[in-house]
């Protein structure tokens, strides 16, 4: 897996956006991609037993990542919704990686549009939850969807091994 990487030298995320803004972006993504009747409740829940994350990196004046985390079973349920699988059917790992990654990708696009530019968005990745960033450079939204916990973390880069050069897509 790769974690959000690279030094953070610019403003912290708390200076650029707040949880209400991230929640609003997520609400729009849920309505458009998960379903018209699907809502995210702004309530924290228990930590997922088998967490899975999807994320995209942001490289620019602010460096970090937008990370979506929930239980693997919740990611599979989200995938069934995104695919409009009717009747609900078994989804394979490739579907989950694709759909869950796209949710993070669209969330990341919404966040990036509010950050100072020019910034570049990486390609979505799915895997174990990346290392957390300092609380001072993290904007975290805790929510529940269909009774399951889900978090969206807009977090600054951590000094882990870098993948940004590979993923960065310039204008």
């Amino acid at each position, binding site marked *: 897996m790769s974690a959000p990487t690279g030094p953070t030298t610019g403003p912290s995320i708390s200076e650029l956006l707040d949880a209400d803004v991230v929640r609003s972006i997520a609400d729009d993504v849920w309505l458009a991609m998960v379903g018209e009747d699907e809502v995210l409740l702004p309530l924290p829940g228990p930590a997922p037993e088998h967490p899975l994350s999807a994320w995209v990196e942001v490289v620019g004046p602010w460096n970090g990542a937008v990370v979506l985390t929930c239980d693997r079973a919740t990611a599979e349920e989200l995938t069934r919704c995104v695919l409009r699988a009717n009747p609900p059917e078994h989804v394979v790992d490739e579907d989950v990686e694709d759909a869950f990654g796209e949710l993070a*990708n669209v969330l990341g696009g919404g966040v990036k549009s509010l950050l100072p530019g020019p910034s570049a968005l990486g390609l979505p990745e799915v895997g174990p939850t990346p290392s957390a960033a300092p609380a001072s450079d993290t904007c975290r939204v805790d929510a529940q969807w269909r009774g399951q916990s889900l978090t969206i973390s807009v977090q600054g880069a951590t000094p882990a091994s870098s993948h940004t050069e590979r993923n960065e*897509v310039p*204008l």
Partner: protein
Amino acid sequence: MKILVADDSRVMRQIVIRTLRQAGYDGHDVVEAENGRDALDKVGSEQPDLVLSDWNMPEMTGIECLRALRASGSDVPFGFVTSEGSDEMRSTAAAAGALFLIAKPFTPEAFDAALAPVLG
């Protein structure tokens, strides 16, 4: 008419095709491409009437594909469907010859507003 949908995400291609139908464009042939390189090849082989392309893709990005098309003399109508809709990207897209940029998450109404002038 034939529409080429380019996105490295199979799920997103499905969503784009579903949204095309919801927007009332369900009578058109749809061809899929997995990245900009594949789209570039398929514009040549499939002769689509419109290209709907993601921006951020491996192998070749959407903007690189559009620039390669225009450099080769192709004037196929081209629009972006992408998760990034900044003013900077919109102006970059327009300068390269794109007709529109639809930002994700999108609605059937957004599709119709962008596509109606092209597909009628």
